[in-house]
């Protein structure tokens, strides 16, 4: 399979194989007008298999979302066909409007207009807790 390299845009590389659709959904890439290519199970010397997403536009990417889904992802910024910047992501301290609280007794469930907030409460175990009700969410 051959995918044209992009002139101006963003490449999300080193995505754990199988995670690309979750990222596509969380970043809202379905709402973009530009072309978006999702490459699944690409061969990788480091990872065996990986997913890649290519976006043919310089959109603002929520790096916190990427860090949350997969801290191994790299973000390549492409200008005029050249790699101009490479960003590494990390597990964010706070996630806003990314997760929905699963606790049926949480106020964010009965008042869904409230902005969802999750705080990283255990970096080692990758645990986030709802800022409202403290329900724990393991990544």
């Amino acid at each position, binding site marked *: 399979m051959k995918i044209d390299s992009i002139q101006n845009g963003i490449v999300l590389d080193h995505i754990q194989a199988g995670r690309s659709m979750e990222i596509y959904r969380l970043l809202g890439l379905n709402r973009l007008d530009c072309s978006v290519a999702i490459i699944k199970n690409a061969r990788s010397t480091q990872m065996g298999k990986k997913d890649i997403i290519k976006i043919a536009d310089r959109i603002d990417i929520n790096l916190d979302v990427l860090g949350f889904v997969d801290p191994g992802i790299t973000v390549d910024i492409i200008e005029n066909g050249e790699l101009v910047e490479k960003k590494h992501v990390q597990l964010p301290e706070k996630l806003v409007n990314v997760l929905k609280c699963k606790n049926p007794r*949480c*106020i964010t469930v*009965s*008042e869904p207009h409230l902005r969802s907030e999750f705080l990283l409460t255990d970096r080692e175990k990758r645990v986030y807790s709802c800022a409202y009700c403290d329900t724990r969410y393991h990544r």
Partner: protein
Amino acid sequence: MRNLLNITDLTTGEIDELITVAEDIIANPEKYQDVCRRKKLATLFFEPSTRTRLSFEAAMLDLGGNVLGFSEASSSSTSKGETVGDTIRVVCGYADIIAMRHPKEGAPYAAAQVATKPIINAGDGGHNHPTQTLTDLLTIHRERGSFENFTIGFCGDLKFGRTVHSLVSALARYTGIHFVFISPEELKLPRYIIDNTLDKQHLSYEETNSLEEAMPRLDMLYMTRVQRERFFNEADYIRLKDTYILDPEKLEAAKPDLCILHPLPRVNEISVEVDNDPRARYFAQAENGKFIRMALIMKLLGLKA
């Protein structure tokens, strides 16, 4: 502006300061009788809890302040679909400080996002009830004189009992306390409290299912209610609710200076015959709730005697 949503919002130094002020209020009540003159406390009870509401209102009245508020008869009628945020924005125009109780967990956090006045969480579902924890801490401090070198037993529903979880995490900040957790297998302390609080901070604790066996070692005994609404199955509730009833017979093996606490209301987990025992301190504990709330209201309003 400060709020009290969770007991962890307070540092150990701030808790100690609140206890010092509360003990001074008890010793010199007249010094505090006009501290909150012309200030208003709103008690917003989206679900009823007469005892907690009266405690807050008595606290404000004893500080010379005024109170206003509401108490919904049932949680289903919660302000006819109005959001918590809207209610709070309106009430912030009327009152200087707000104590709120709400059936939904995290409702006080939602309130604090839009409030322009201090918010006190007076209970949010099964989540937090920090003024109960402050009440318990003041009682322990008054009974023991310090937070060091004693054995405290927690008995009953340790799985769902938020007062227990919150008090354990508050006491975990001090040294020299031994914890004994007494419960049926089905209602044991949650694993995350053992991992994240007890083991992480290397605290001394044990778990047992026998109140009789633990009794002779205890300096403090914190009894809790086994709540019907925590059970999906009526048969489980009936089987377990009478498992740990404190009566004069069980107290025979207890220390003469044991101190018995209970957040109230009780159902039948402490027999009424225990009430006249000088070791029963749960009614004194309830009164302490008013004094610590007085200290808290002053702190959040930035007022001193």
